[in-house]
């Protein structure tokens, strides 16, 4: 049995931050730990088999963290796992009571809203891309092959936008978690 594995599109699959955290925690309980979390991990994340551990994972979206951001987490006992764009991943080993980083409802909601708006930004870009390509395919005076390219690009953008739309809806439904 291989002792590494790749997981694809994880942030999109487990769209809701709390679900994503639980998924990480479950992996750790089975002994799977991410090798390195970085820019490309949102597409493919490599895990290595090791000792099963009880980790509480936390994901946090911070597009412009202040200088004391990392320090506060570290002081509270969190270990920095990595960062995908503005999404920070933290973990902490525990026994007994599960530690929380967002300890009340208002802060949990604002954490979730930050994820919502980050996805919304990409959604808007893709939706615009789809509209512009579709518009060009219909109205621009171009050769037929070029037109086909534009139609394909519009379709791809629309498909990706639709997927992000689903992610947004799922986050919105779970703002309290």
């Amino acid at each position, binding site marked *: 049995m291989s002792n590494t594995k790749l997981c694809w599109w994880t942030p999109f699959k487990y769209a809701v931050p709390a679900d994503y955290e639980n998924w990480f925690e479950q992996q750790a309980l089975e002994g799977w730990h991410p090798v390195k979390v970085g820019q490309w991990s949102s597409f493919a994340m490599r895990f290595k088999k090791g000792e099963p551990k009880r980790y509480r994972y936390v994901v946090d979206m911070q597009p412009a963290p202040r200088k004391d951001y990392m320090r*506060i987490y570290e*002081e*509270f006992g969190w270990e920095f796992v990595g960062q995908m764009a503005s999404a920070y991943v*933290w973990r902490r080993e525990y026994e007994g009571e599960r530690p929380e*980083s*967002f300890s009340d409802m208002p802060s949990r909601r*604002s954490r979730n809203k930050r994820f919502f708006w980050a996805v919304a930004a990409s959604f808007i870009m893709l939706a615009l891309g789809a509209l512009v390509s579709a518009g060009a395919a219909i109205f621009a005076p171009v050769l037929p092959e070029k037109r086909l390219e534009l139609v394909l690009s519009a379709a791809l953008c629309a498909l990706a936008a639709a997927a992000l739309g689903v992610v947004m809806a799922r986050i919105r439904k779970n703002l309290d978690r």
Partner: protein
Amino acid sequence: MNIDKARQRYIPMSETMLYILLSLREERHGYGIMQYVKELTNGRIVLGAGTVYQSLGKLEADGLIRAVREEDRKKYYVITPPGAQILSEEAARIHEIYRHLEGII
């Protein structure tokens, strides 16, 4: 932020905000705030890192607290006069509730 706007935004305020403001009558940093509040409430309120970080950012942006110094990448904050004003108005409000509830328990 002017005081009227702060009143609208913070009164009534969440338990988290209240205890953070209360703890910052003395200069403290993130972890110190958590410890202070935990001790004060006998372990009932254990603030999380994300909650503390987020609340400090909001309170600072609204002028209710300010950063006083940085030491070893730790930032220390203290309550400002408008922050103290809001805290005391909130205390008066809670005191009134307390009086109305006396005898219920």
